[in-house]
């Protein structure tokens, strides 16, 4: 019988392996699965390729994963934030690779992976350095660039409520990359604030149907990244 709920973040990330490509939801702190990321720091896998819109703030969450030298490469649209220190330092030292992708292209590449579309054309980045060496084609007089699906081994996603089938709903703009990332990974791992009984989520309002989800862990009181950053906290906690 179907029950995707696991008991701990540790158990949730237990299958992650060295060298994996991992999608991590969030737009800044909104939607960032900070407890799952910390569990991955604890697990210590290396040589990871991380796909996420940003590259972390302060010394917690994604920044902690990067500082712990677990990340070989990051694929993102905006690796700077007001208080990002870890990534910029390592990037300048050449200790981490960056693939910069326009935000809409990033979202669409992830969605394409989930939808079985290996490649598509987009107008974004045409005539810019980010389209360098990429195939272009003209449709109806306008130039487009060919972009490829961004498949992944795992996705780490934060949502608001989930049931044991893996049906998910999100909260406000914390939804952002979560739904497409759930679709695009072989194994999708979700942290939820609440677990609901099957049937409590209105079938008209399910955002991520359970088919896309492998494991769900309840984290009732997730940390607020901005609070941790303001307090200058560092993971692993001291």
């Amino acid at each position, binding site marked *: 019988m179907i029950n995707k709920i696991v008991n701990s973040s540790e158990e949730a990330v237990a299958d992650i392996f060295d060298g994996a490509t991992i999608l991590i939801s969030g737009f800044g702190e909104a939607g960032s699965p900070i407890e799952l990321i910390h569990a991955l720091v604890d697990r210590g896998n290396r040589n990871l390729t991380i796909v996420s819109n940003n590259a972390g703030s302060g010394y917690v969450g994604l920044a902690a994963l990067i500082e712990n030298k677990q990340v070989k490469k990051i694929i993102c649209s905006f690796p700077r934030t007001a208080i990002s220190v870890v990534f910029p330092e390592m990037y300048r030292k050449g200790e981490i690779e960056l693939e910069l992708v326009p935000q809409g292209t990033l979202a669409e590449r992830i969605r394409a992976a989930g*939808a079985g*579309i290996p490649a598509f054309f987009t107008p974004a980045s045409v005539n810019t350095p980010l389209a360098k060496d990429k195939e272009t084609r003209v449709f109806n007089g306008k130039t487009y660039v060919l972009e490829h699906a961004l498949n992944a081994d795992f996705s780490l996603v934060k949502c608001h409520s989930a049931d044991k*089938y893996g*049906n998910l709903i999100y909260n406000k703009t914390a939804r952002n990359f979560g739904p497409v990332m759930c679709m695009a990974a072989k194994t999708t791992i979700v942290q939820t604030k609440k677990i609901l009984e099957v049937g409590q989520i209105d079938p008209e309002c399910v955002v991520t*149907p359970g088919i896309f989800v492998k494991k769900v862990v309840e984290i009732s009181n997730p940390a607020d990244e901005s609070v941790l950053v303001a307090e200058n906290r560092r993971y692993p906690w001291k």
Partner: protein
Amino acid sequence: MEIKENIGWTVSEMARKVATDIHDGAYVNLGIGIPEMVASYIPEGREVIYHTENGLLGMGKVAEKGTEDFELVNAGKKYITAIPGAAYFHHADSFAMIRGGHIDICVLGAYQVSEEGDLANWSTGDPNDVPAVGGAMDLVAGVKTIFVITQHATKSGESKIVKKCTYPLTGKNVVSRIYTNLAVIDVTDKGLLVKELAPDISFEYLQQNTDATLFQ
């Protein structure tokens, strides 16, 4: 070739064979017609979630007389129900599930299946027919495992398990296993492997009544 009528398994028995091969927790899409019968034979203790490509994950039983909702139908346009924990979504999202490899098993009918697992199930190529394809090509291209359930022969006695499909293809190298009234046959790299014979059906009889070459 002649196949006697009413020999081997009944359609219900065939559907039960398919159902037995569907694992607990599987996400399954059932084609229109005989494949829909499979849902009735899932062994107890297994939970299977049904996808219908017109936008529902968690399809339940057919709606009872008098409770039909014109806006709750399956891909065959039958009035159905939804289970608790179901989700509705639009057509592009529904086919993202299919094309993206998220559905575990799809059970389809067939006009012909070839030795290499090619499937023809949407057109006989008759120019007088109005061609119609529906979601069949997306299903065979995207779903992880394709099971075919079909009578071994057409009503006029021709083998549906063929060396090469003569009808237009739905997809090439897509079928994993074939359930007919005479046998269960796996499509393997080496050819068609007979896994199980219906009662009183010999391999020789099966081969005599099959256009394709079979192995045991």
